[in-house]
């Protein structure tokens, strides 16, 4: 019987270790800061034989995603990673992956997008791909990155929809944190080998992603729109079973902290939500009944789970690390308001955009912002 190991690794290395544990077959990769560490680690593991897979050193992210979808259609388990402009460069092929129902898993290490250039984190990159039909997780620690990649493969392969696992550049990607590595036999039990329902096979000539007439096209799109909602129960099931096997828990579709009796609920995602636990403690010390509601799943948006988790008459403070251009505030706030409308009229929602392009989000700064929002 193997036992769990604890190692000190960066977020990018935690991601690479998860990909190795998932026993992927093909990894197309292209460097971009702050994701590069994932590709470097995987290329090294494949070269040394530690990971039995093929690395394809492509010439750009558009090709990285193209090679990924093609390898997936051939029947392989596939992973790639990117950030910011690399993710935007993939845009067309992201649609092909979801429309083609290919369960590729990708890490997007969040970074603000050009122009002007920035290297540091915000969430404009992944939110600008919100409507590509990909499932999107957001993680708040190295351990959660590791755990979520394994859960992502499971969900992706259950419903044939690709999954993007997001985590912030630098504050997660480049920070060392302790990481618990479950025994490989446990991971193999959680994530069985990929057995595609269909693959490109000369024994069964058929077309794939070919031209469709309008009625058939509409059916394909409708199926994707319906099926992506199934990611909500499947993500919950994956989180529960992962906990049963490994003992680790990051939340399911949502994660909460001191929420039960909260009057002020902070609503945020990714690394800032990790820091926000400390802000909540500060506010509690000041006599404010604050709590945290952090969606792990952002697409599909876990509407019912959020509605059920919000305490009565809560003041919800949405902290967005992105802009919803053409609207005041950020995209997370718009998403939240759209699900609360008509369902939770007892709740008020306030919104601030912060942390753009890596502006530092400390526990004290965010606690002060929340206090100021209460007075608005």
């Amino acid at each position, binding site marked *: 019987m193997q036992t769990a190991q604890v190692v000190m690794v960066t977020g990018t290395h935690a991601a690479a270790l998860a990909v190795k544990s998932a026993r992927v077959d093909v990894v197309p990769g292209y460097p971009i800061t702050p994701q590069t560490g994932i590709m470097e680690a995987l290329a090294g593991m494949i070269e040394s034989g530690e990971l039995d897979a093929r690395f394809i050193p492509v010439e750009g992210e558009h090709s990285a995603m193209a090679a990924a979808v093609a390898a997936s259609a051939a029947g392989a388990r596939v992973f790639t990673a990117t950030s910011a402009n690399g993710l935007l460069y993939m845009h067309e092929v992201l649609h092909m992956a979801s429309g083609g129902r290919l369960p590729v898993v990708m890490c997007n290490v969040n970074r603000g997008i050009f122009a002007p250039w920035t290297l540091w984190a915000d969430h404009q990159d992944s939110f600008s791909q919100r409507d590509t039909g990909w499932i999107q997780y957001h993680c708040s620690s190295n351990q959660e990155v590791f755990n979520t990649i394994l859960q992502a493969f499971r969900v992706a392969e259950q419903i044939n929809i690709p999954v993007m696992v997001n985590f912030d550049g630098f504050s997660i990607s480049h920070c060392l944190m302790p990481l618990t590595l479950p025994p490989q036999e446990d991971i193999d039990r959680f994530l069985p080998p990929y057995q595609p329902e269909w693959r*490109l096979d000369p024994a069964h*000539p058929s077309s794939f992603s070919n031209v469709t007439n309008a009625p058939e096209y509409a059916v394909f799109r409708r199926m994707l729109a319906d099926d992506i909602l199934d990611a909500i129960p499947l993500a919950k099931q994956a989180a529960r079973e992962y906990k049963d096997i490994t003992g680790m828990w990051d939340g399911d579709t949502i994660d909460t902290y001191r929420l039960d009796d909260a009057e002020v609920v902070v609503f945020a995602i990714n690394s800032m939500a990790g820091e926000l636990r400390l802000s909540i403690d500060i506010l509690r010390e000041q006599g404010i009944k604050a709590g945290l509601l952090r969606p792990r799943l952002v697409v599909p948006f876990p509407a019912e789970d959020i509605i059920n988790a919000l305490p009565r008459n809560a003041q919800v403070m949405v902290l967005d690390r992105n802009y919803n251009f053409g609207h005041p505030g950020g995209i997370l706030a718009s998403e939240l308001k759209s699900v609360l409308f008509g369902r939770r009229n007892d709740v008020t929602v306030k919104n601030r955009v912060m942390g753009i392009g890596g502006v530092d989000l400390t526990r004290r700064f965010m606690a002060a912002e929340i206090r100021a929002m209460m007075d608005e």
Partner: protein
Amino acid sequence: MATSIKKLPDTEQVLSGNGSCGGCPATMALRIVGKALGPNAIMLLTPSCAVASMGMTPRLGYNWPCMNICFATAGSSASGIAAALEIMKEKGRLQGELPTVFTWVGDGGTYDIGFQALSAAAERNDNFIHFCYNNEAYSNTGVQRSGATPRGSYTTTTPAGKRQPKKNMALLMLEHNIPYVATATVAYPGDLYDKVVKAKNIPGMKYIEILAPCYLGWQFDMSETVQMSRMAVRCGAWLLWEAENGKITFNNPTSLIISGKKDPDPVDEYLMKQGRFSRFLKGPDAAQRIAEIQNDINYEIVFMRERAKIAV
């Protein structure tokens, strides 16, 4: 000697009832390619006439698993399939002989939008055959200019005739040091067949470009596709050659033109038979314009003759 058309295998991978135009050279070429590759292959298609004519979902006019891919991704998609097949075979998840992976792509998806990914796949020497069926324009979208459109040709985006010569794509691929590069055209089916058979048995990246005279884009009678293809070779506007491991060999009848044993036919008749040159060649300076096109052809003949002498 190239294999006689009478000796080609009976196997048909292009099925009857597909949606291509009458006299379509790309479909003729694909039929020959199918005879050489047989059924154990995976076909990748970028947006092009071949997609428009393959039949609509769920019907399929080609007897292979066929994947439609994004326009710019022939090189990277084929690399993904090749890598997946190899590792799955290594891990024991696939048995038997691995299928040939091939792309079937027009000149737009090769010369223009697909060039970057193709160049990278060649540099990695990934294991597949890239076929470019070159009809010298974006015929599928109604004939617009591409990097393969020759000087003087009318397209809907070069209404007065293209001002620049085409680029030598096959030579550019050769300069990536891939193990096999060949050119072909539909008037010489045995030559095409032999080249595909050869490519199929070479590991690494192979590039085969097939001149495909398109009656719609070139504006000639659809019964004359093969004749137009033959005229292009005889006047030197299309050179038949192949290169194994970097060594260039010219094929008949191009070899006779290159060696000087036979003069190329003057380009006039080839140009005049096509409506696409008629506007460019109208007017008092027609002779000078024909001379410009002739110069482009002469340049390529001389350049390729000299390039072939470099063998390291």
